[in-house]
């Protein structure tokens, strides 16, 4: 099965620029509601882009489960209301990949000629309910009828993949843990946003509370409140607003079965392989050209599989690749400079936009202490559910 983007990939000239980014502090933000954080991120992005709300033609808002987490649906209208505009505003949902899907919709809208300037946002408020209810809510991203029914959880699904990866390829828990250690370290250089900007060790990961064996608490991304926004505009208008625009040059999206047990492989995400191949082709680059990447490390094993699926290393050796330091800042291909989902936090619908913001900061040279020197091409890898949706977006300065 070929993902549908493939036949269009060659010869697509995207002509879309990112001219502004905005993020809220991620964490348990119990003094602010969903609308507060969504507005905060939007306003920050609008100021960063040096535009006014009146310049925006359309908005796309990534959100997974506001209905379940906060009792609020109709997020498109909610955000338009908060920003005080009456333009088209649409919620986009694809579980934890909602943010990147919203970004793709924004790009499409500009390419189709429907809009010149678009605000793409993502927001999720997850800490107003107990962990048990959040766990149940998150399972809405998996197969409710055939996985959730049996008491399956998200950590559980990734634990099933981790165990199989360890069995088939000899991947060790220490290797997986090294991804979390690196991401927590990167988060210490992203204090304004990151939920957990503190150092941890491999030992700490191995000895923290068991969540779904073999995965422990420190193998897991947390439950997070947070919002992110970026401003997209037509390439030829970008310089009018901004001296350092970043361009979207490739985008791939692919789907797979909703339920994990239905897949041919349990040790990688085919949708990630497919989406990345389309994105590389569209951007006219190869994997070696990528200077910095944000991957969807909802669990440590997910970062291991991402390195393999995206082609950073060969199938089966992702654990060693990370343990050897290849994905640190200064390594072969720095991964998750923001701290990743693990340490920066994972407000599900906002994650894809946060990833894009981090890449934009890196390509502008604005990433401060965590700057990857000379980064020109960056990529985001955002996964919905246990791999049923995957979006890969490529950016260049």
């Amino acid at each position: 099965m070929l993902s549908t983007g493939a036949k269009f990939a060659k010869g697509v000239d995207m002509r879309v620029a990112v001219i502004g980014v905005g993020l809220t502090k991620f964490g348990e933000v119990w003094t602010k509601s969903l609308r507060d954080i969504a507005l905060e991120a939007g306003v920050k992005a609008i100021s960063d882009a040096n535009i006014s709300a009146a310049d925006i033609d359309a908005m796309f808002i990534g959100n997974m489960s506001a209905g379940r987490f906060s009792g609020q649906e109709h997020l498109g209208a909610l955000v338009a209301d908060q920003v005080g505009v009456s333009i088209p505003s649409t919620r986009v949902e694809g579980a934890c990949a909602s943010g990147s899907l919203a970004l793709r919709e924004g790009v499409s809208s500009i390419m189709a000629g429907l809009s010149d300037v678009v605000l793409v946002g993502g927001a999720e408020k997850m800490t107003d309910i107990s962990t048990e209810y959040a766990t149940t809510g998150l399972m809405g991203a998996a197969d409710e009828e055939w996985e959730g029914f049996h008491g399956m959880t998200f950590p559980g699904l990734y634990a099933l993949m981790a165990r199989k990866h360890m069995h088939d390829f000899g991947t060790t828990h220490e290797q997986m843990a090294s991804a979390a250690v690196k991401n927590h370290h990167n988060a210490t250089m992203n204090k304004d946003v990151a939920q957990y900007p503190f150092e941890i060790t491999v030992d700490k990961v191995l000895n923290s509370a068991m969540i779904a064996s073999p995965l422990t608490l420190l193998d897991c991304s947390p439950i997070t409140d947070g919002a992110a926004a970026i401003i997209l505009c037509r390439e030829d208008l970008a310089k009018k607003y901004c001296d350092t625009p970043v361009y979207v040059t490739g985008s791939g999206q692919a789907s797979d079965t909703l339920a994990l047990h239905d897949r041919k492989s349990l040790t990688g995400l085919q949708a990630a392989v497919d989406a990345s191949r389309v994105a590389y082709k569209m951007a006219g680059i190869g994997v070696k050209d990528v200077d910095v990447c944000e991957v969807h490390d909802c669990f440590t094993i997910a970062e291991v599989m991402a390195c393999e699926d995206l082609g950073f290393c060969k199938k089966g050796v992702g654990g060693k690749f990370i343990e050897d330091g290849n994905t640190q800042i200064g390594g072969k291909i720095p991964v998750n400079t923001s701290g990743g989902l693990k340490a920066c936090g994972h407000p599900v619908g906002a994650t894809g936009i946060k990833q894009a913001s981090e890449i934009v900061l890196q390509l502008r040279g604005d990433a401060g202490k965590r700057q990857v020197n000379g980064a020109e091409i960056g990529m985001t890898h955002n996964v919905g559910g246990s791999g049923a949706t995957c979006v890969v977006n490529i950016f260049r300065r």
Partner: protein
Amino acid sequence: MLWRRFRNKYHLIGTYCEKCKTGFYPPREVCPECRRGGKIVEKQFSNYGEIVTYTVVSAPPAGFEKGAPYALAIVKMDDNGPNVVGQVVDCDDEKLGMGLRVETTFRKIYEDGKEGIVQYGLKFMPITHENL
């Protein structure tokens, strides 16, 4: 609306594409490989199989707190059957492992909090005596 799926959930009944000889559980009405060219029939799969991968869940979702920690596995059913996910019960921790032979067993899955409805379905347990 789980009652719609009772037949499948109680008996490991799924569907099968006679053209490409692939089993589907949960049942599919369209074969992803053969599309409209496939021939889908209902099929009762073997109740025996082998653990492909497993986990023990200590942080349960709402409604499963009482049973935690509990084991969950993906089991490859015999006779070229499909992969099926379910809890593994009546199994010592030392015994639980990759490749363990298991059979289905009809059990209570959970109690629906709001209405107190008890949901039943299939779980797995180690095979007690295998008839070869």
